[in-house]
């Protein structure tokens, strides 16, 4: 009586067909990247060593290590974070705790979406026009970092807002009923409950900032410098730009050198993203409400 009709059988078959088709597409999306990562490791792995990470490039950048570039990336990222984290968190607090649901908030959101969508090279032009020339910082770590800070600001705002939104409204109401002001509530109740989520977003921003190349090319990163930066007004080398330089601009580079640089860069970025994801999952498991 409940034998499968031929229509049912056909429908099941169609369903399975599509399931397999979409699974293949997912796999085909992931496979090339795994092959690419494997190639990077195979070709660049041999050069990675303590010396590679902690010595200067020598012989017109065809030999030696990447230390100045590594250090420069840390400088740029650190200064960019100093600017974008406080600003991004404050902006997220405004959007989630103060702003109403109206046209003005919509415009702010549109601006954030556009800030994330403007091409990186346009951010670079802005950095040149504003920080290098108008504010007179010259090509410096400061100019490069501020350019990157503005470019990655949406990452901080969006992730902070998500974690603020996850704090139940009842927490705030309970605090207000005790006579606390808005800011007291935010500082004592909302932020402590959201701080780990905010941290996840910051790690993500570090990863984004580390990999960006175009915005720092003309604002503060140099192809090669014989000295290390002493202050934020110095130029510096940077890992991402260094990869571009050794891959395209320098003749006679041994094959495994750019692969090694690419491997270090991608390892840094993926490591930070993995930490961020793992942290997020741990938090999700721990959440009590």
């Amino acid at each position, binding site marked *: 009586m409940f034998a499968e009709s031929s229509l049912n059988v056909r*429908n099941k078959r169609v*369903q399975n067909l599509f*399931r397999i*088709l*979409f*699974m293949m*597409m*997912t796999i085909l*999306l*992931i496979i*090339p990247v795994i092959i*690419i990562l494997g*190639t*990077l490791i195979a070709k660049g792995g041999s050069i990675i060593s303590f010396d590679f990470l902690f010595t200067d490039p020598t012989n017109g950048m065809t030999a030696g290590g990447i230390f100045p570039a590594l250090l420069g990336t840390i400088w740029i990222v650190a200064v960019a974070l100093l600017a974008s984290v406080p*600003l*991004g968190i*404050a*902006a997220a607090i405004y959007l989630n705790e*103060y702003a109403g649901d109206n046209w003005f908030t919509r415009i*702010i959101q549109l*601006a954030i979406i*556009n*800030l994330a*969508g*403007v*091409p*990186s*090279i*346009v951010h670079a*032009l*802005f950095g040149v*026009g*504003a920080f290098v*020339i*108008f504010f007179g910082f010259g090509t410096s770590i400061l100019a490069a970092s501020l350019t990157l800070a503005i470019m990655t*600001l*949406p990452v901080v*705002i969006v992730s902070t807002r998500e974690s603020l939104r996850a704090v139940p409204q009842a927490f705030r109401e309970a605090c207000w009923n005790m006579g606390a*002001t*808005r*800011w*007291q509530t935010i500082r004592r109740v909302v932020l402590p409950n959201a701080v780990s989520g905010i941290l996840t977003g910051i790690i993500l921003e570090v990863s*984004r900032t580390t*990999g*960006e*190349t*175009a915005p720092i*090319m*003309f604002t503060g990163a140099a192809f090669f410098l014989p000295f290390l930066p002493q202050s934020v007004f110095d130029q510096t080398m940077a890992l*991402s730009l260094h990869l*571009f330089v050794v*891959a395209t601009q320098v003749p006679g580079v041994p094959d495994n050198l*750019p692969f090694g640089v*690419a491997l270090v*860069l*991608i390892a840094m*970025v*993926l490591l930070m*993203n*993995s930490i961020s994801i793992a942290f997020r999952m741990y938090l999700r498991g721990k959440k009590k409400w």
Partner: protein
Amino acid sequence: MSETKPLLQSPSVDFDHRNFDWYVDKFIQSIVFIAGISAIIFIIGIFVFITIEGFGFLLEDFSFREFFLSPFWEPSDEDAPEYGILALVAGTASVTGLAMIVAIPFSLGAAIFIGEFATGKLRESLKVLVELLAAIPSVVWGFIGLSIMNPLIIDVFDVPVGLNVLNAGIILGLMAAPIMTSIAEDALKAVPDRYREAAEALGATRWQVIFKTVLPAAKNGLLGAVLLGVGRGFGETMAVLMATGHAVNIPGSVFDPVRALTATIAAELGETAVGSPHYQALFTIGIFLFIITFLINLTADLIVRGIRKG
């Protein structure tokens, strides 16, 4: 109780809540408000500053006809420099177009598989993987185009040079696909479960639920995902700089090298003197890029919001 207050006070003291905490609160409120509108300030700032730098060119050397319709980008010609971006637009468009041909089917397919078919651990790990793929920096993608795809294309298609539309298109497609996948998956997730349950209650198979119910309901969100992918491809700089071959050329086939708008700025800005017509022309390209991506993002946002309201 360490301090006791008199029960009766004059009303002026009693109802005046402007104590120290109140002023702190107001102060903080104005600070976060300024931070809140900073995104607007920056967007306007970007437009203003690139326009200031490009203004001289717009006033003097700019000719609408030459800029948009001439295929010759010869800014360093001493006698008669020409600033035509037609070939550059063609380069950007061909690479982005090919990238979308690669990315759209795969990212939508992957989004449907992750969002509708996969469950539990498989789904979680696929999502993590897609997120990690989206994090690979563009300069690394460019390097992959240069060092892995280039010899591969030369071998497989037996062409002399592997830095061309095909190379950059595939690289850009692989780059854009993870981002499009996660946005498309969000769009599928936004379809209420009761739609699926209603269709299943009518005896539909999972595929019928997806095809007849979920996809039509998520149509706008998926379109938004595609548009954001286009915007991303349009604005990508380092990967196209390294993988296109960087030759000013209107492509006749996918094996022709091209040059993109973004890559032109990246390659030439360092060589030009501040304030020269060439320098200003590069900023004018920047204005053009800014306006195009602004329109793409605006459209995507309006489309996605359209369904939320309706």
